[in-house]
């Protein structure tokens, strides 16, 4: 299995080199697929999904995007091997935007292209026992003028403003239980300093570290990371309007818990599953 995996990985290295910037031959390519669902059905803007949350809410999906950075694969010896991201439209430096919305009226904001795979190179071919990543934008890139930044750091709907920084995660849905629908905008808070002078920092980073155990037979073609909104929000009451990350927002504690803040092991957002035959 391992040798099969290795050869398929090397095969895609050549393809990736053709598609983008050159990589050195000793690297192994990695393509980590993500899939967004609601109770097992594909996440699509405008689609209704019944029975979400403790309130049994019917949601109409509108938006689902999240920045991730510092992606690492962990070997059985416990060594972290950074995933060096391909530099493409949705990946810049070590930051990637996972984007499951398709723009247009049903989505409300955003744009047509999606990005559901983290692609890059690893300095090791594994085997790996876990993948670790952080949700959000790193502190040193969080307070730039988004409009002048390279993609994917320049989407206005993923940005508050200079002082506020980026929305690390954006989930929005219409519901049958809250007039304004429900939204979750994860961001750093309790910030001070002046972004325009490069001195802005935030005391509450709110960048969850996520660790996903990989099964022994893990392979990029056979497994994927699932973000199932139904599973993610199973313990939440969706009759309120969600969480904007505000310090005084009483709803935020329970929302934060679902993404692993402060307890990383409590996150219900992401899990690795065997890829269904499609």
């Amino acid at each position, binding site marked *: 299995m391992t040798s099969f995996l290795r050869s398929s990985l090397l095969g895609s290295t050549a393809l990736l080199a*053709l598609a983008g910037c050159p990589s050195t031959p000793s690297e192994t390519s990695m393509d980590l697929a993500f899939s967004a669902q609601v109770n097992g059905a594909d996440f699509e803007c405008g689609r209704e999904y019944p029975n979400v949350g403790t309130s049994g809410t019917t949601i109409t999906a509108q938006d689902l995007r999240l920045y991730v950075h510092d992606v690492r694969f962990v070997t059985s010896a416990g060594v972290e091997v950074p995933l060096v991201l391909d530099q493409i439209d949705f990946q810049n430096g070590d930051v990637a935007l996972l984007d499951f919305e398709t723009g247009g009226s049903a989505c409300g904001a955003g744009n047509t292209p999606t990005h559901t795979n983290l692609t890059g190179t690893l300095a090791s071919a594994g085997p790996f026992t876990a993948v670790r990543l952080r949700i959000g934008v790193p502190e040193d890139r969080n307070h730039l003028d988004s409009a002048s930044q390279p993609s994917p750091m320049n989407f206005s709907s993923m940005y508050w403003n*200079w002082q506020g920084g980026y929305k690390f995660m954006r989930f929005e849905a219409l519901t049958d239980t809250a007039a304004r629908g429900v939204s979750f905008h994860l961001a750093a808070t309790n910030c001070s300093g002046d972004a325009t002078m490069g001195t802005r920092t935030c005391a509450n980073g709110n960048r969850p570290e996520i660790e996903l155990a990989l099964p022994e037979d893990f392979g990029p073609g056979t497994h994927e990371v699932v973000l199932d909104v139904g599973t993610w929000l199973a313990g939440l009451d969706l009759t309120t309007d969600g969480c904007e990350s505000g310090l005084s927002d009483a709803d935020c504690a329970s929302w934060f818990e679902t993404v692993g803040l402060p307890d990383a092991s409590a996150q219900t957002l992401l899990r690795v599953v065997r890829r269904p035959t499609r």
Partner: protein
Amino acid sequence: MRALVLVVLSASIASASCGPAPVAWDWELPPGIPAPRVPADNPMNAAKVELGRRLFYDVRMSGNQTQSCGSCHAQERAFTDGRLVSVGSTGDHTPRNAMSLTNVAYNPTQTWANPALVALEDQALVPIFGEHPVELGLANMEDELVARLRAEPLYPDLFAEAYPGEADPIRVPNAVRAIAAFERTMLSFDAPYDRYFYRGDRTALSESALRGLDLFNSERLECFHCHGGFNFTDGVMHGGTTIPEIQFHNTGLYNIDGRGGYPEPNRGLYEHTGSPRDMGRFRAPTLRNITETAPYMHDGSVVDLDAALDHYAAGGRTIESGDYAGVGAESPLKNLFLHGFTLSEQERADVMALFDALRDDTFLTDPRFSDPWP
């Protein structure tokens, strides 16, 4: 051999996708402002920009030779016309308020609510040739237009310089490209705001304007969501943008049917998509030079900046009586951030001070953008 081919291929692709883009035109931008995007088939050059300026202000660009682009886009008004809606060369009223051309090069889409109108070259065709309504009124007069342009002594040399290598450059598409190239040079980055943030002059903004900026960027007023970034709008496309974000918003300006309806013929994005959710959704214009561009909104129905602030403070506009009566604040289609706010007199003055600080007098008086004709 195969490996060699692969290496060569990947090297050539790498140089195309990873190398720096060639710099052909000096935009004279302050540090931190990205250069505009220029279509591959319309590269910038000085002769083309000068030609575009001449054509922009040339009344021969209208059927009855009474109007030019400049008739509805006056420099001293940040290239707007001061009217509720514009009046074409034959007296037709357009349904919309003339938009400012300030930094128009950065718009991911042009006009108020057309998701398909991306390039300035395409937009220019609408006022020049459109018949419903007639604006410049040149429909079916292409040959006469070319004859008029040939007859102007300045044009043959300018067209030839602007489009080197073309045997017969005086053509309608070339005229349109030149106008677009001129419009791309209409860059406004010398307002007090810019001198403070991009040019290092920490005296350029008053305490009041800085307080206004804090209010502008606050969760209380929420202005920045739709008017953010260096161009004070949520749609920006520059040379480094690969995936533009194209957004349109309903601000609760109308609610004529209790379901968020806007009056015809100004129903915004809905007119293009037919989707009920797109009713009343328009593009957020830049707030640069906003003090010079009254009246406001797509139909000019908001008379001044005080009234604009009142509209947002109320979370939508209430129209008491008449065909358009309705409570915009109760529109089910209005943007999430239109939740309303109250401003003290001082706070209102502070926000106004910020608007004043977005006025770029250099831009408003720059001779390079002025009417060159005697």
